[in-house]
């Protein structure tokens, strides 16, 4: 009798699994379409960007038919919950706060944060001993790099977009030594950096690298180490409803294989100009 029950349970689970997998033959993916080069629109209004190429690749790997829809950023999580689409692929950082509401696939991108200063600034040549620091664990190397930043930027004003992982970093590690000025948009921060009202700005390299190539960024230069981990979050992943953990797992598997065979790196270099793939 006990055996029979177990068997029945296994059969039920297998059946449920099959039914669920069948559910994911066709899914809708939401993106913002306003966050170049991650996802944005070309002059004809077509959605393009790193994440559009990546989504196409991942869907092929998963054997799923995907449709990409556009959704404004402020409603992107509520609409996922409401079932308007099944996944968010929109440059969304995996944070503990968002994890309370939705689940995430493994990360596909990890873009280091970096300081940018004016080319004529005294800090234009600022370097720490290392090019990249991971703040997941703060040990001697990270401490030395942060001490270098304190020495370089002590007493200066640093601008940052408000309520970002970058602001969290500044408050946590440099808060006592610098003046932090917060901006509602990155564009306003750029203007004040150009005007010299802030001595340096902190943001993601995925934003800086394309900007520095344009006319607007020609007098700016990225300095110091690239920073990841700790206050900067756990990379960028696909956001999925908690009850669709199976779909999140499918995404994770596809992302892992795309990272392993170098596809993500290739796409990142194409769109960002540097390898922003997660490791």
């Amino acid at each position: 009798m006990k055996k029979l029950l177990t068997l029945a349970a296994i059969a039920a689970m297998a059946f449920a699994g099959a039914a669920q997998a069948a559910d994911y033959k066709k899914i809708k993916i939401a993106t913002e379409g306003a966050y170049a080069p991650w996802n944005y629109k070309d002059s004809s209004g077509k959605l393009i960007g790193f994440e559009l190429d990546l989504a196409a690749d991942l869907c092929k790997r998963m054997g799923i038919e995907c449709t990409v829809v556009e959704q404004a950023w402020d409603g992107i999580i509520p609409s996922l919950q409401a079932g308007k689409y099944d996944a968010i692929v929109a440059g969304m950082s995996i944070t503990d706060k968002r994890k309370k509401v939705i689940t995430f696939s493994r990360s596909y991108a990890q873009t280091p944060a970096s300081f940018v200063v004016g080319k004529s600034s005294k800090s234009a040549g600022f370097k720490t001993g290392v090019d990249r620091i991971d703040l997941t664990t703060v040990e001697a190397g990270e401490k030395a790099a942060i001490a270098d930043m304190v020495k370089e930027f002590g007493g200066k004003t640093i601008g940052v977009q408000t309520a970002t992982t970058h602001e969290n970093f500044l408050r946590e590690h440099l808060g006592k030594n610098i003046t932090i000025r917060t901006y509602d948009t990155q564009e306003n921060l750029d203007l004040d950096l150009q005007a010299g009202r802030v001595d340096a700005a902190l943001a993601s390299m995925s934003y800086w690298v394309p900007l520095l190539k344009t006319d607007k960024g020609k007098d700016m230069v990225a300095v110091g180490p690239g920073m990841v981990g700790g206050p900067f979050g756990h990379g960028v992943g696909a956001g999925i409803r908690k009850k669709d953990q199976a779909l999140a797992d499918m995404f994770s598997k596809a992302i892992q294989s795309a990272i392993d065979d170098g596809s993500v790196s290739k796409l990142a270099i194409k769109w960002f100009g540097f390898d922003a793939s997660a490791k």
Partner: protein
Amino acid sequence: MNWELIQESWPVLVGAVPDTLLLAASALIIGFALAVVIALMRLSANKPLWGVAYGYVYIFRSTPLLVQLFLIYYGSGQYRMFLEDIGLWVAFREPWFCAILALTLNTAAYGSEIIRGGVQSVPWGEVEAARAIGMSRSLLFRRIIFPIAMRQALPGYGNEVILMVKATSLASTITILEVTGEAKKIIAATWSPIEIFIIAGAIYLFLNFIVTRGVAMLERRLNPLHETAIKDVSAGADIH
């Protein structure tokens, strides 16, 4: 409604009240002095003086304060080299200077019109009487015209003070963390606009309650006769 968030946030917002008050007070004090000068220019018979004052008032009353603020803040950023050459960049570099400058220029335009109205409402008989006893022009202005004009202008100016207290919220758009700036910062981190803006709104309500009471008290002090006159009229009405 998240009461915990309200409890956590209101001390932060109340802590930003001194910044709001500093912005409003600086703009109102400097703006008042400027407003008197502009009002006199507009009342003067000298055509160029009149023209400058007219143009100034026209421009600052007819464009949004937000646009003026952005022009001063981001505009000065574009002319940094020039401002550095004439030594003004030290001031324009600071968001506080730009905010107080924009608020001051704006309130001076409105204030000058209120004062002009007050001066023009001074009864001609009073001026004639003062002249008759041989008062000089400046004494006439100091003793007769200005005090009467100010009493007439007070209710209108009270309005302007309230508008300025509220207008300081625009300084939040150029990185100043006064009450609205702090509120926007907390909202960006908590995604809870309702709770935070209710606290911010209540703070402005309280500040302007104080302003309203203050102006009413000042009116009573400056116009004691006016009040007894009203009482007499109402007393008279009772008898009939």
